[in-house]
């Protein structure tokens, strides 16, 4: 970035990654335009407006100094945790699981905010923890508690996907903080043992079904496996170059369910093919790499852990969604950020980007002058 001649507020904007994010967002709107059968309504237009409003918000957030995030990390975590409990207590029943908190003027999904909040909270915890304590037990159980509480409430809702993302976001920060690797190896082995038990005893019927059908989608081609089968058909029939803009049959003839939300990638892949898909994956990877690099450059433990953690949160969004759409993971209801129609994920990811840019700005300021 040779932007030294620009005025100060603009000089510290990471133009490259901003361009990528805008490109992904605009491409998402193009896909939504096609998913609506070649129409801005009902999705592309509102998604576009929201995208630019939220992007402006993210740029505004990038002006918030890092210490503010540090100070807000634990209180914000606490508030969101309370909100989660509130959802459990008085949340509106919606779609078989309680996720929304209706405040009258806005419907909030507190679990969505918990995804960045858990990263901030864990980062703050390891920031506070003296370096010498890192290899002690005291470095583990508070973090485990920080992660376990919200994850438990979210899974109670029940929202398996989000619960898993909260866990993985927190665990990523734990990993980055320097906790002995063998704990993760042991934890991984424990997971291998416990996951089948959990599937059998802890999950709701519909969740267990989704997992069983994920393992053998053809067993139920017209039921729950329908989503995966049709999504694979959409991607597979797209070929290398795709069927062409507005030419997707799976999406336009309604064979692909949720073609504008969770399965938007399949809608895209059918029309843009392997090329479109790889470019989109590459764009996401570049954004995530930038996030990790922000962490590498950052000074201070909190900033480093936060940046890498948030980048990984974005990664988890993309990876889980794509694995689900391509039949590599069960259908868990994680949208593709910036592309899928819907406000929550968009809000979360742009919030993550805002915080990342804020950390980046801080770093540049120090190094640039």
């Amino acid at each position, binding site marked *: 970035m040779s932007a030294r001649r620009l005025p100060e507020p603009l000089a510290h904007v990471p133009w490259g990654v901003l361009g990528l994010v805008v490109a992904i967002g605009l491409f998402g709107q193009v896909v939504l335009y096609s998913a609506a059968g070649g129409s801005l309504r009902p999705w592309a237009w509102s998604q576009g407006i929201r995208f630019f409003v939220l992007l402006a918000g993210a740029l505004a957030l990038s002006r918030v100094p890092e210490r503010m995030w540090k100070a807000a990390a634990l209180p914000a975590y606490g508030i969101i945790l309370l909100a989660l409990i509130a959802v459990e207590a008085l949340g509106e029943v919606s779609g078989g699981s309680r996720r929304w908190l209706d405040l009258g003027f806005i419907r909030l999904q507190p679990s969505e905010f918990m995804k960045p909040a858990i990263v901030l909270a864990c980062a703050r915890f390891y920031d506070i923890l003296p*370096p*010498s304590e*890192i*290899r*002690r*037990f005291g470095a583990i159980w508070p973090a485990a508690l920080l992660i376990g509480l919200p994850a438990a409430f979210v899974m109670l809702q029940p929202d398996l996907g989000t619960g898993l993302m909260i866990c993985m976001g927190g665990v*990523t920060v734990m*990993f*980055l*903080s*320097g906790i*002995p690797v063998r704990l993760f190896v042991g934890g991984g082995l424990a997971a291998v043992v416990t996951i089948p038990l959990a599937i059998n005893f802890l999950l709701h019927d519909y969740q267990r079904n989704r997992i069983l059908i994920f393992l053998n989608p053809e067993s139920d081609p017209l039921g729950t496996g329908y989503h995966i089968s*049709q999504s*694979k*058909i*959409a*991607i*597979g*029939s*797209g*070929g*290398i170059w795709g069927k062409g803009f507005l030419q997707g*049959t*799976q999406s336009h*003839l*309604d*064979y692909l369910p949720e073609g504008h939300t969770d399965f938007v990638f399949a809608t895209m*892949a059918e029309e843009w*093919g*392997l090329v479109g*898909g*790889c470019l989109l*994956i*590459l764009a*996401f*990877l570049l954004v*995530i*790499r930038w996030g*990790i690099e922000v*962490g*590498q450059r950052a000074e201070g*433990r909190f900033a*480093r*852990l936060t940046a*890498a953690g948030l980048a*990984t949160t974005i*990664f988890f969004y993309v*990876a889980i969604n*794509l*694995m689900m759409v*391509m039949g*590599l993971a069960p259908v868990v209801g994680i949208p593709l950020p910036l592309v899928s129609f819907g406000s929550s994920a968009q809000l979360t990811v742009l919030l993550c980007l805002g915080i990342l840019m804020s950390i980046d700005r801080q770093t540049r300021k120090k190094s640039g002058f």
Partner: protein
Amino acid sequence: MKRTGRIVTEATQAYSFSRRAWLLGGAQAGVGLLLAGRMAWLSVAQNAKYNLLSESNRVNATLVPPRRGWIIDRHGLPIANNRTDFRVDILPDRLPKPERERVLALLTKLLQLTPEDLERIRIDLDRAAGFQPVQIAEKLDWDRFAAVSVRLPELPGVQPTRGFARHYPAGAAVAHLTGYVGAPTAEQYRATHDALLVTPGFKLGKDGLEKTLEPMLRGKPGARRAEVTARGKLVAELATKPDVPGRNARLTIDVGLQEYAARRLGTNSGSAVVIDCRTGEMLCMVSMPAYDPNSFSDGISHLEWEMLSKNDHVPLMNKVTQGLYPPGSTVKPMHALALMENGVSPDERVFCSGALRVGTGVFHCHKRGGHGPLDMRNAVAQSCDIYFYEMIRRLGYDKVAPIARDLGLGQKFELPFTTQRYGTVPDSAWKLGKYKRPWTVADSLNASIGQGYVLTNPLQLAVMVARIASGRALVPSILADHVHRDAPALPFQSENLQVAREAMWKVVNGGGTGAAARLLVPGLSLAGKTGTAQVRRITMAERRVGVLKNAQLPFKLRDHALLVCFAPVENPRYAAAVVLEHNGHTVRTLDTPYIGRDILTYLLDRDRALATLAEVEPTWGGDIATRMAAEEAAYRTAHSPPPAAAATKTDAVVPSDAPAVEEATALANRTQAALSPDTPGPSVAEDGTTERSTDE
């Protein structure tokens, strides 16, 4: 945790972070590669598979049943054709159970379905194999068809189609000729997995020519392709592949004659065959009463089936090829020929005293007082039994049987019908093989007047008379492109054949027993031979008190009435056989001589034949359709069926295989065995048969 000696400082922590962050980044890049690889696998390696799946999602191809080839008569007139048909079906797969009653209620309103229809549809839906469409209604008028079509969104699984339905303009008159068509059975589908078999509206031949000519008549289906949404909404019609209609099958039948003969048989349970004496072409082949192939093709109700099965006139049997009867005196011209071929002079006389003693028994002539001295021509003309008893007693039946076979009796003919029964021309070897008993004189005597072991079907009788009339070994044919022209001459003296023909002329025109058959067409004459075949024993005791009149007997015990004839005598052109089961010669206009005469008159002077029919038909209750409707109404009233019995029997037994037909044939065999003189008990004399004059 204190055992680790490493001292963790902020610097080492930053270093550890950096390493682990790169590791994390690398892992993320790895997952990215994995995803790209997975996507490439789906969209490149498996592209063909998924393209196919996507296309089969997008394109909904419905087969269009091919138009069935027509069956046409020798002049090109339709015997079976197709007419436009508006029909409505349900695909059980696509009709969710909870919706069923609502959909049926709406359909009832739109199509004015009767409770009987509804009951049948429910039964069919319960039994349906999912892939098999259930017929709601066919032959709909446009208004009702359109009413369903516009409300389709409310009617899941309901499928209105415009197609073709088989139509037999002559109705029952051609039933046993054409057979009928019907929906394929689940077994047929399982055997071939041909999607055409489960296409609504597709029907295949179930019996008769429709069945045997199926490969020729079927054709190749077309396909209607449409782009549809996941909810089945039509987006666009794609290119339609037209069907290839089946080929027409041209028959040797004259459909006008066929219909005339069917009507002329009236209320009889009988059959009539006419053969062209020059080529062997079958001009008509009628078996009455019959079912209506039009209603069979729609799927008939249990009630109709039951009514047809229980009818003692066996409407389900094609009597021409499946009915076996003792030929009675109709074989006498043939026996005369056999005698001459074995050296008997036609002028040699036999004295008929009314009875002939053979061994311990007495054989009677049908004329109690006897005919006096008779030569061969007069013996045939008067149908004298004693002449043939005496002559064939001298000759032995083993000399006669080969000639009977040469004339077509007991012979199999290659005809496109699934079931044919060929009867028996007995001789000593046959009897020894079958009953392990030697041939007796009484056997010869019984066979000499066409009784005893002799059994023939009406087609064979027609071939016999056609061969006598033409002097050639004609082979009957029914497909216009399989006519056996240029049949060789029979290995008989032409003078002998001429004597047999003259004798037959005398039967009708020379004061013989068949005078009623005299042709009324000026300048042309008809030759023939009547016959009566007894189906019961007449005991000595009965003979003493007077043989019971047929009118006094129950239907099943009455004599069969037969006639073989040909015309014109001078240059034989048409030969016919008429066989009436249990007719008993009770009503003159319904007896063989008049019927035979009128059928041949139709070919020689159509207007005269039609005028006669117009005169006599009202006396027995009108034409075929009128009588069948009246019969069904009466049966329905008498049996007031529960609705279930009126439900369609979609996989009804094919008439040729119906139990009723089996039974009728078994009866012929039982009668034969019962009348055979070998059964222990009364003397042969009591087994002698009588010939009542057919012209009393």
